[in-house]
């Protein structure tokens, strides 16, 4: 298995199931970490030419695995989603919407509002997914952090990437998990190109809505 990591991203390498290497290898149970895309590798959404297996940043972390199990086991039609990213990369907005659409249904009714003072940028995206899931997505400038909350009538699931450690330079909650990458990556095709273009259009319109 091969994975392309973005610059400065790290992979969790604690699993005894895998051997991790930077050398190209097709051996079983071996994970090859690449810097440049290859056809048969899992590639990040930021890859310019999206082909083959593409993984979303949001669903590439360990928290995504139990979250997905909870969502599979319970009613996810109605509820409230809150995602908050502290980041210096606001291009996550369209990627996150696409990722959330994969799990919660088609996005609609997008509204976008922002404020910027000096280097401090803040954007709120209000939208709905599927039939009856409202979502509030926030993006603010700063060192990487993900806060996620899903509420339904019976369950509330919360995640905060800072909850495990205050050491933001070595926060394993924000290391990629190869099992999450493999499980939730999508085989990119024309339909995803169309979905991405639709999300971009909704975000543009959402600034005026």
């Amino acid at each position, binding site marked *: 298995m091969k994975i392309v990591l973005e610059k400065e991203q790290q992979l969790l390498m604690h699993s005894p199931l895998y051997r991790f290497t930077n050398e190209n290898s097709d051996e079983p149970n071996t994970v090859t970490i690449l810097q440049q895309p290859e056809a048969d590798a899992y590639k990040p959404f930021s890859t310019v030419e999206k082909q083959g297996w593409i993984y979303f940043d949001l669903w590439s972390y360990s928290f995504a695995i139990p979250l997905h199990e909870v969502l599979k086991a319970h009613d996810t039609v109605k509820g409230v989603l809150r995602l908050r990213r502290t980041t210096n990369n606001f291009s996550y907005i369209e990627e996150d919407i696409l990722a959330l659409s994969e799990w919660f249904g088609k996005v609609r009714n997008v509204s976008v509002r922002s404020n910027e003072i000096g280097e401090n940028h803040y954007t709120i995206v209000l939208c709905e997914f599927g039939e009856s899931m409202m979502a509030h997505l926030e993006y603010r400038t700063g060192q990487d952090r993900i806060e996620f909350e899903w509420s339904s*009538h019976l369950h509330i699931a919360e995640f905060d990437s800072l909850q495990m450690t205050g050491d933001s330079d070595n926060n394993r909650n924000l290391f990629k998990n190869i099992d999450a990458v493999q499980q939730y990556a999508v085989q990119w095709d024309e339909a995803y190109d169309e979905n991405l273009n639709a999300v971009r259009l909704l975000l543009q319109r959402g600034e005026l*809505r």
Partner: protein
Amino acid sequence: MNIGIMSFAHIHATSYATAIQRISGTKLTAIYDTDTNRGMDASKQYDVPFFADMNGFLAEDLDVVLICSENVLHKEMVIAAAKAKKHILCEKPIATNIDDAKEMIDVCKENGVHLSIAYPVRYSAPIRDLKAAIDAGELGEIVAIRSTNRGQNPGGWFVDEELAGGGAVLDHTVHMVDIMRWYMNSEAKEITAFANNYFTDLDTDDAGIMTIVFDNGVVASHDASWSRFPEFPTWGDAMIEVIGTKASRKVDVFNEKLNLYGKGSKSLTHLYSGNNTDFDLIVDFLNSIQQQKQPLISGYDGLKSLEIALAAYESNNRKQAVKL
């Protein structure tokens, strides 16, 4: 100072009555209620005469009345009390529509009485500390604000729109948007919102999320809901986070707590250990009246926060931003 309570429909009436009993120089002297059984129960509990007739109640020698009725009755009670020259502390929301709120403010002004709205969150110590930090410039310029007020379904008349005037969005928006206005001294100019039934089968909305753009350019978001089930460790939250150019700070009124773990369906309970905001609200309001000062929270504050909550419903219905 003689104080009367008009209606025990709102649960805060009991904490206000208890507060009055603790404050020297004040006396709870009369209770009026549209619900005779409820009023009689309160009368017995506090050993105070009960009046089933509002005019009879207002003819008593009262300096101040506290109105804790169902929301739709606020207007009638405030106007009657103002005409009887009583100073008024009215539960939130001030009213269920803008015209009523404006009329209530006008009638109080014409009769020379103070109208204040019960926003006890303004008296929370951490909320006040954050206000002081903002005023001292510790956060720099404010870029954005986010807040949440998510609690349990209150049931009863709160979930009956004919009595409450709205659902969770009306119930749980006004407190926190009042704090936003107070922190920034700026008014909302645009609201975009969703409000619907996401957690219950109620006939009214049980949750909503809104984006608020203020006159000063700050973008804010507020999450209002009755989404916390009884097994949740606490009633809910009243959280606000202010993101500034120098620093960001987050406080939750209910986060001053003792964690209690136990066997049973509720394995964790948060025992609140912060200051008694209802008590502090009553003390400050009564001091203002005694000292003939404008109370900290005015009827206008009630009106402006109501405007935001009602605009959220309008935005949800129209599926577009609403300008104020």
